[in-house]
């Protein structure tokens, strides 16, 4: 009974809460890091060094008036933020934060589920997230959100092709679809897949930026002629859901990248015995640290780069990334065939 219900439920509760808190602090991290990059201070007023700013933001967004414009499609308008939030959260079911640990004399795995098509699950759930964006644009019954949502979803779908192709080459190397299995494969290989598949890693990172609509691919949201993007008509908590979903997706991409390319919960250089003292640090801390590096890079990129134009973005996706990903896949397959 305990193994079947209580522990999974506890794990779900912990992961869900950690995610939501993480998302809100991701916002603070972004504001702070960008502020430092721009020689500013960022939020400083709420708590020491603005540490409670996310709480204030959350309270503000919750007590703001939640406006439903008159001529919108009510059901879809309400459902859209939820549809975009839910996939971003349920992805965490398969993300391994660490291997088994012993807690209170009981073997506990530091992941909610290890399903044998874990990676495929991540991809398919992420592909459902696009509905939130499309429906928000459609339901708003307004020109700019519609255009922005079409752009956003076209961008998302295009880059998903490249990203999925890179994932296939990772699968080829690892020989499994299970997220835990992929980490274990890296443990056996003694090297992170980022070093075996550097091209795939690069494409995944760029594609991840584009899929989460982050700078320099953030034009569906910030393009000057499209005003606010697909969530222009949203306010209050519904807007907050879109906001949270975006950052949750950023964290998902970082976690997945960590798992696939940076050895998940493994310490750096898992094959070098001289570094064995690093094992003192719990595995999940390693995982969080690596994800944090990713998050930082996401913010860093935003502070540094200008924005692509829409046609340049599509050209980059279809004419550069996808061909590169295919070449990478073919070469990986070929080498794999030779080696085995």
């Amino acid at each position: 009974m305990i193994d079947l219900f209580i522990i999974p439920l506890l794990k779900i509760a912990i992961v869900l809460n950690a995610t939501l808190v993480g998302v809100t602090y991701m916002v603070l991290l972004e504001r702070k890091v960008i502020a430092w990059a721009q020689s500013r201070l960022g939020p400083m007023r709420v708590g020491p060094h603005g540490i409670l700013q996310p709480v204030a933001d959350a309270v503000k967004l919750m007590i703001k008036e939640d406006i439903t414009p008159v001529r919108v499609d009510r059901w879809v308008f309400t459902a859209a933020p939820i549809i975009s939030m839910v996939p971003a959260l349920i992805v965490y079911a398969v993300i391994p934060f660490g291997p088994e640990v012993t807690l209170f004399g009981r073997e506990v795995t530091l992941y909610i589920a290890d399903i044998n098509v874990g990676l495929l699950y991540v991809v398919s759930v992420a592909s459902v997230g696009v509905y939130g964006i499309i429906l928000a644009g459609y339901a708003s019954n307004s020109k700019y959100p519609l255009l922005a949502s079409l752009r956003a979803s076209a961008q998302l779908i295009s880059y998903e092709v490249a990203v999925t192709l890179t994932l296939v080459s990772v699968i080829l190397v690892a020989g499994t679809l299970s997220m835990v299995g992929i980490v274990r494969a890296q443990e056996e290989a003694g090297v992170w897949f980022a070093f075996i598949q550097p091209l795939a890693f690069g494409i995944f990172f760029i594609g991840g930026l584009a899929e989460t609509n982050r700078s320099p691919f953030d034009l569906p949201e910030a393009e000057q002629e499209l005003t606010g993007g697909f969530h222009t008509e949203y306010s209050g908590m519904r807007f907050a859901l879109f906001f949270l979903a975006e950052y949750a997706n950023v964290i998902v991409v970082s976690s997945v990248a960590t798992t696939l390319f940076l050895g998940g919960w493994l310490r750096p250089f898992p094959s070098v015995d001289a570094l064995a003292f690093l094992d003192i640090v719990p595995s999940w801390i390693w995982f969080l640290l690596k994800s944090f590096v990713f998050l930082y890079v996401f913010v860093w990129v935003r502070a540094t780069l200008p924005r692509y134009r829409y046609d340049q973005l599509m050209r980059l996706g279809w004419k550069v990334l996808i061909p590169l990903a295919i070449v990478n896949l073919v070469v990986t397959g070929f080498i794999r065939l030779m080696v085995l």
Partner: protein
Amino acid sequence: MGEAIAFYTIAAFVLGFAVLVVSTKDTVHSVLFLVLDFLFVAALYVLLGAEFLAAIQVLVYAGGIVVLYLFVVMLVNLKGLPEEHRDPHRRTKLGLGLAAAVLVELGAIFASGYARPVPQVAEAAIPVVGNTEEVGWLLYTNYLIPFEIVSMLLLVAMIGAIVLAKREL
């Protein structure tokens, strides 16, 4: 027992959403019900132990194809009145005809299914756990020709779509 409950619940949802797909007036809502329908079909696959198929169902149908449907439905203005036709009951007749055909087909399947027992070989071919490798083997051995034909067909369709969409090449 639990499996049966799960199956019937999911099946009820599948059927219910299917009915909603055809009965809803708003086309966008109808497409959305289609997505929900696909998600529950994926749940059925999970119940059958075919997780790979379930994931692919969500990825390809819910995440890919229906998005394109949604694009088309959103961009083509369907709010206008349908054009006049000489026979106003044309659609009803067509629908009845199709329904009859489906009924006959179902009857035939039932009849043949009850007529001879399910072969044991098929039982073994269905992987006990959702086995991605198994699916891959089958696709590239037993079903290689159909698989390749389907991929050619898709390629042709893609080229056709490009030719149609791009006026000047």
